[in-house]
């Protein structure tokens, strides 16, 4: 084979393209991580830093940690509600014999089609109106934010459950029924364990949708109720505190660790299949 055979040139081009892609994709993340360990001059944040320090990690402010934990709590809470509502909904959607199933599926998917900013304003106004009517004002409360995050996260859980139930081989269930199990115990001991990967990936998406949401939280936040993305957004607009880079680095590291754990326990393919 000659040095410049078509095959070899193609392979080199493909590798260069993929390398360029990863450089582009990861550059902002790498920069945040590196600068978070950097000594910062008065003039602001610059890459590359002159020397390295752990200073920003030891001085992370209490309000940033509070916001980070609040983000995690809201995301976890909304995932629990999404799973409790989404698993029966996904099962019902595939198994029921209603004619209007397609319309129902579209209705469940609707929140994904609505831009997050619109969802944010809509919930804000809805909460004002609800407050005037029943005396409970949802805007600026954790419950209000959680309900809105359930709204935007639920389609992901339903979508992944539907995807996995559709591929599910009904013979396993039939076998268990023939062997004398009751339908409810088949559901609990056969169906649910088999569709579990779909539930995990749906829950992962719902968690991420909530954890990384800015637009919805921006409208529903208050001085006491602020998630980490909202805090970061406000800090970037006004005065920037380098310890935020340390918290951002923790989030980046956690994302990669979470991905590795998911791949190890559930398998990345479950995540890809339900992404459609």
């Amino acid at each position, binding site marked *: 084979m000659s040095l410049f055979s*078509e095959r070899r040139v193609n392979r080199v081009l*493909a590798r260069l*393209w*993929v390398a360029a*892609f*990863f450089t*582009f*994709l*990861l*550059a*902002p993340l*790498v920069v*945040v991580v590196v*600068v978070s360990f950097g000594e910062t001059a008065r003039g*602001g*944040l*610059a*890459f*590359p830093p002159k020397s390295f320090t752990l200073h920003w990690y030891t001085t992370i402010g209490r309000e940033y940690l509070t916001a980070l934990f609040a983000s995690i709590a809201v995301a976890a809470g909304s995932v629990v509600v999404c799973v409790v*509502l989404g698993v029966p909904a996904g099962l*019902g959607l595939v*198994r029921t014999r209603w004619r209007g199933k397609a319309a*129902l599926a579209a*209705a*469940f998917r609707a929140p994904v*089609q*609505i*831009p*997050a*900013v*619109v969802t*944010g*304003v809509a*919930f804000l*106004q*809805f909460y004002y109106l*609800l407050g005037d009517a029943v005396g409970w004002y949802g805007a600026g409360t954790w419950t209000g934010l959680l*309900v809105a995050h359930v*709204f935007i996260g*639920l389609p992901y859980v339903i979508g992944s459950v539907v995807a996995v139930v559709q591929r599910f081989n009904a013979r396993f*269930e039939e076998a268990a029924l023939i062997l004398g199990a009751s*339908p*409810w115990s088949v*559901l609990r001991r056969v169906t649910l364990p088999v569709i579990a990967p779909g539930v995990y990936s749906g829950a992962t998406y719902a968690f*991420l949708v909530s954890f990384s949401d*800015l*637009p919805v939280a921006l*409208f529903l936040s208050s001085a006491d109720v602020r998630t980490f*993305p909202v805090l970061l957004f406000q800090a*970037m607009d006004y005065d920037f505190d380098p310890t935020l*880079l340390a918290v951002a680095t923790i*989030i980046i590291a956690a*994302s*990669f660790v*979470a*991905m590795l754990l998911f791949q190890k326990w559930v398998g*990345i393919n479950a*995540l*890809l299949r339900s*992404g459609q």
Partner: protein
Amino acid sequence: MNLPWQRFLLLPLVLSLALLIASQYVFLRGSLHADLGVGRLGDALTLANYRKLFTDSFYFDSLWLTIKLSAITTVATLVIGLPVAYVLARMRSRWGPVLLAVIVAASFVTIVIKVLGLNIIFATNGGLNRFLVGSGLLSAPITLIGKVEGVAVGLMYFTLAFLVILLYSVVLTIPRSLEDAAQSLGASRWRMHWRVILPLSLPGIVASGLIAFNLCMGAFTSAALIGAGKILTLPVLIQRTVIFDTKYGMGATLAVVLLLAGLAVNLISILVVGRLKVARGMTA
């Protein structure tokens, strides 16, 4: 298996429909009422907001900018992402799953952090700009803040990782044996890509592209942070109209137009692709 499946649906359906209708109805209804200032709406039904949107060039420009930016960034991300998705899907080495996991993990990180990183990279006193200006490649430092190009880059970061994941699953649906067949029949690799892979994956590419396009149309964070009040896409304008001007009526009108414009572009692309496929079928 016979279980009361309809009953499974009842509670989730009632709850999500209630939230959908209650929130969207309350907000979008406002588009038909005049703004009286400080968040109050008039009682009479009117189309004045819509008339203003299509006659006032300020609003119309924003709509056009949003569609244009979303279309350009979607095409750019498709061009960048498609070869990557193909290479990853066909990779036999054990690095394949690792690279894929890195992309998925990158898509997990909130866009606010990515924009923060971009701001540091393109800081005027940053290493990149000092290098570019110092070496004489550029006369002035590049900045993203307040620039259309900057917002486009931000939008690309919003969708790129996710789009590659979608395209990866599209490529996986094309059997490798088809490629071997094309090549054993004498097609070059380029010809095989052009005549076999691309046509087969076109529906998937369009579907993934539309998902990315819709995400861009609704993208707030990168447009707001990088646009810095100078580049006003519709989502940014909606937020400013509601929060700073407290014009809920106009904000709702913009939201309706944003939803409809996105829907229209989706329908048109699906029709165009349907036509392409029909034409292809007739010549084949």
